[in-house]
């Protein structure tokens, strides 16, 4: 079942080559050439992934390609190689596939930007780093990819570096990423010390005989890494800020692929989490709480990209919850469907933003249904897919996750997950209504200079959205319980190769009706509140104008609903959003940075340049060392 093939190397190397070529010619070539070269590199990488899929020879097959061997020198033995099992290839397929579509889209979105070539070089570099991350056969290689996607993310968030906020956001993302990296490094080191190797198979074999404390420590350290990378509580604050980057970047890195690297880490480390219930449960609860938090905060965001960012946090929370509960295939399935519809939504948002000349405030939008009919329909299907409407992709994957969580006996998390499904539909339809329905708000101000009237005729932008939307519609059908169940058949053998994974079969259950009903309720509420004549719509849009007439409401339950559900939720939402987010969690991070700086200044005053105080310090040091060595108890 195992075979060696250089095709794996091609998947990784092609985008790297593309990156180097575009970087070298970024000032020489025309836009079209640059975009074509970069996109071709990723397309070939995608093709190589398909070839690898063919060579794999069935679900349990494993492809390998050795890269470097750090000999057994200094008691340190490591070999770095590439691994193509079902999990890796699944991820690689999405990374290169969605990556290719976004490369194509970018040629329209970034058209005319002075940094066009630079942009493509970085985007290609990201695809290289991400495929290295998912194709490595050991934790050190994974770590190298992990650090490089962080670097790519840093460079692309700060792409428009003449904006101070973009530079600050890039820095924030990077620092949080480093926190996670430290967790990953320490966890990897623990594994190397214990197993004498960082190679997955060896490590997992050794985990069976390891002390529980060690396994739990590794699991929790990896969780720190996953939390930082996947924008989960409490290290999520970089993600909304990261929206400073170009929109296709948000779609590729901060929605479809990089933020799911944490999920990949947990899934890949399944044997570790199966051996430590504490670590696994922590993952599940962190994921569940992040799902709730993201959904609640998304309810009141005025920025189109930030709604999507919090939604991403929430959806990745679902994946984490599933992975923590042991429903690994569900997590991976949702990763794929989420990549489709969230990328589609981001790219659609990019078209809207271009059309409006850079406007991102959804309260200033509205009525785009008439003006952008194609995007309207595409966005509608993507929103439905995300909200979990049957038979679109989100329905199946969310269903599988909730089923897995319930199966694992985590009823509390299951209830939470169902509630989040309702909230998801709510915030997505709020977004959808404010952007596409109703009248242009406020009249005439929805346009800005530099607006692109003909954006819908830019095929290189519309077609990728169309493809992704189509995938959001049909993508779920690969896992119709009892009928196709492809993720299960394809992914489970790879997991079972290294551990005794509990099997959560996707099945039809009456719960599906409940979840769908909750989501539908959320959607209906949102449509009624934010629809063309919704009262909440008026209030939000006329944030500075007079409040609309008292309780003009086409929906009868509105008043009751508002006092019983909306008000508390909104109150909590704004409280959480306003207080806890910037001042609490974010405050801690800022606090740490501030404390380090303050400490730095305090220490600097000690280094005031006075020789005699330096001598005094030396004397203190001598006394200390002397005292210890003289008095040390043997």
């Amino acid at each position, binding site marked *: 079942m195992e075979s060696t093939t250089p095709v794996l190397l091609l998947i990784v190397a092609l985008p790297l080559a593309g990156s180097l070529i575009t970087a070298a010619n970024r000032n020489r070539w025309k836009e079209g050439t640059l975009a074509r070269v970069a996109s071709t590199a990723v397309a070939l990488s995608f093709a190589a992934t398909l070839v690898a899929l063919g060579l794999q020879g069935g679900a349990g097959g494993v492809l390998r390609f050795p890269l*470097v*061997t*750090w*000999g057994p*020198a*200094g*008691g*340190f033995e490591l070999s770095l190689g590439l691994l193509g099992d079902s999990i890796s290839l699944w991820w690689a397929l999405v990374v290169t596939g969605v990556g290719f579509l976004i490369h194509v889209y970018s040629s329209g979105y970034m058209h005319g930007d002075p940094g066009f070539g630079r942009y493509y070089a970085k985007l290609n570099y990201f695809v290289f780093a991400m495929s290295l991350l998912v194709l490595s056969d050991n934790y*050190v290689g994974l*770590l*190298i990819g992990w*650090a*490089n996607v962080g*670097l790519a993310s840093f460079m692309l968030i*700060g792409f428009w*570096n*003449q*904006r*101070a906020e973009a*530079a*600050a956001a*890039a*820095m924030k993302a*990077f*620092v949080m990423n*480093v*926190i996670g990296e*430290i967790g990953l*490094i*320490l966890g990897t*080191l*623990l594994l*190397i*010390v214990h197993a004498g190797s960082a190679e997955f198979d060896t490590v997992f074999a050794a985990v069976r005989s390891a002390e529980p404390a060690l396994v739990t420590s590794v699991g929790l350290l990896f969780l720190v890494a996953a939390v930082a990378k996947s924008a989960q509580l409490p290290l999520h604050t970089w993600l909304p800020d990261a929206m400073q980057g170009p929109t296709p970047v948000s779609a590729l890195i901060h929605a479809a692929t990089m933020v799911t690297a944490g999920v990949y880490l947990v899934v890949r480390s399944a044997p570790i989490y199966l051996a430590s219930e504490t670590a696994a449960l922590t993952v599940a609860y962190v994921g569940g709480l992040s799902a709730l938090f993201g959904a609640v905060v998304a309810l009141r965001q005025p920025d189109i990209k930030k709604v999507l960012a919090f939604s991403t946090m929430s959806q990745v929370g679902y994946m984490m919850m599933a992975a923590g509960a042991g429903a690994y295939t569900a997590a991976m399935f949702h990763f794929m469907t989420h990549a489709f519809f969230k990328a589609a939504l981001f790219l659609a948002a990019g078209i809207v933003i271009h059309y409006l000349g850079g406007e991102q405030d959804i309260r200033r939008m509205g009525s785009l249904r008439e003006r952008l009919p194609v995007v309207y329909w595409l966005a509608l299907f993507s929103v439905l897919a995300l909200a979990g409407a049957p038979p679109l992709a989100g329905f199946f994957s969310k269903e599988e996750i909730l089923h897995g969580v319930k199966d694992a006996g985590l009823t509390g998390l299951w209830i939470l997950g169902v509630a989040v499904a309702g909230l998801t539909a709510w915030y997505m339809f709020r977004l959808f209504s404010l952007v596409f329905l109703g009248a242009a708000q406020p009249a005439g101000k929805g346009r800005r200079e530099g607006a692109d009237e003909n954006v819908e005729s830019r095929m290189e932008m519309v077609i990728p959205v169309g493809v992704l939307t189509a995938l959001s519609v049909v993508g779920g059908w690969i896992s119709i319980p009892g009928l196709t169940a492809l993720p299960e058949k394809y992914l489970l053998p790879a997991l079972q190769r290294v551990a005794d994974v509990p099997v959560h079969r996707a099945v039809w259950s009456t719960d599906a009706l409940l979840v769908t009903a909750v989501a539908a309720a959320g959607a209906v509420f949102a449509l009624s509140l934010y629809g063309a004549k919704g009262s909440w719509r008026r209030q939000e849009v006329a944030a500075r104008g007079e409040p609309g007439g008292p309780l003009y409401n086409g929906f009868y339950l509105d008043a009751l609903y508002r006092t019983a559900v909306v008000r508390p939720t909104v109150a909590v939402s704004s409280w959480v959003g306003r207080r806890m987010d910037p001042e609490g969690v974010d405050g801690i991070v800022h606090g740490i*940075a501030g404390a*380090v*700086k303050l*400490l*730095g*200044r305090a*220490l*600097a005053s000690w*280094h005031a*340049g006075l*020789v005699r105080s*330096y*001598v005094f*310090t*030396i004397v*203190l*040091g*001598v006394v*200390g*060392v*002397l005292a*210890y*060595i*003289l008095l*040390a108890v*043997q």
Partner: protein
Amino acid sequence: MPEVDVSFQVIARALTLVVAAVLVLIVDLILPSRLVRRPVAWISALGIGLAGWYTYSLWVQVTPAGAGPVWNVTAADVSTAWTAFLGAISADGLGLAFGGIILAAALAGVAMSVRRREDDVSGYYSLLLLAAAGMMLLAAGTSLLTIFVSLELLSLALYVLVGFRRRDPRGKEGAFKYLILGSVASGILLYGFALLYGSVGSVWLSDFQAYWYAHGAHGMTPLYRAGLALTVVGFAFKMAVVPFHAWAPDAYQGAPASISGFMAVGTKAASLAALIRLLSVALPAAELGAVVWPLTVLAALSMFVGSILATVQSNMKRLMAYSSIAHAGYLLMALPGLSQQGIAAAAFYSLAYLFMTVGAFAIIVWLGDAPESGSEMARYESLFYRRPYLAGALTLFLLALAGTPATAGFVGKVLLVRNAMEFGGWLLVAALAVTTGISAYAYLRVVLVMIRRPAAAQVVEGAAWHEAAAAEDPDQGEEEARELGTPWPLAVVVIVAAAATIYLGLFPQGAIAALSSLLPV
């Protein structure tokens, strides 16, 4: 009384450097002063190259051993060909490994200096060579006397070099502070050596083993302990370990950047080699903890102080100085257990540190290192748009210093952490983890300055460097740099350093194997 056996090969490593230093001075006497610059640089480089060749030939003879001389010199080895002057200097793997690093740093120092405009070129180069000779002897010395004298040889030469630039009050100030504090440290070291000598009755390291053999655990007398403590302090000072570090920022900032880079690497490598040798000879394994524990605390302190203070610097050389303080802490992680693996890790990290630091300093030189504002961070603003390759290279070196994977710095840290974990140095591991985060911020700050376009500069708050830039003419150094052009040796240093940083990050096994084979236990 064994007969005096001067094994030429053993001392040739340092001797060629001294000869080259003298030749440089003679050439200056013969040639008219405007013609001196080139020949003098070539003589220096050739001298270092020859020293390197002698190091290599010794290396080849020592390596295939297991049978070769053990760096832990015993009385039996004294009369063999592997030592010189009754065993005052020996050709062991430790000295060879660190000696190679020192020579590379010296060569880079010469290459980085070719643009200097000082009148006294020959004095500059000869002092650089003498400092390198001192470092070589320090790394190879197996007698307290050799260690002391070579330590002073390198220190005296560096005091002068730090203050070498005329009309630069900062250089003089840094040099004087360095001299006063260095003399205090040397005085403490001298007293510590006296106490050790009083206890053991000999200054030859080979006799220390006999002492322990004779006394066993009773050898740990208060006198001996005190001597050991003072000795350790002396070396800690040279390595710029907190709280004996205060000289480093001032000396690094005041010195020409070429010298800062050379001394950061060379002094550290030489002192570390001497400290390792002394500790492994002067203490039986059972007693090691008494000395290693306080050093562990100081190492952790160094990591914290170095990386925290690096975050608030506005001068590149000063930032590198604090970085070097933090790295002194990392290097001390080799001490717990004092195993072959740990020492190999320290040697590897020194090698990595050589490339990362020399590379960074070479770029500081390249961009113009004028006395007043040359290395201010404000001058690096938007460097990515003006000099993309230089900015990229500097980014690489800074990322490597921060320990980013796929660079030499990462592999070095992994090796050190592994060693510390094995021997229970959890404090060190925790300190390394936290300070890696802090220092990533410090280095990334520089990268951000280089990425930022000038227009955005005003917006970012707390930009202390901006005020500094407003006070002085920011283009003065740049102009100077342009005027002087870019000599090829500087480019070679940057390219080699960058290539090595990446190569060692991806394919470290060759270097690790070579270093390990040099260090049999």
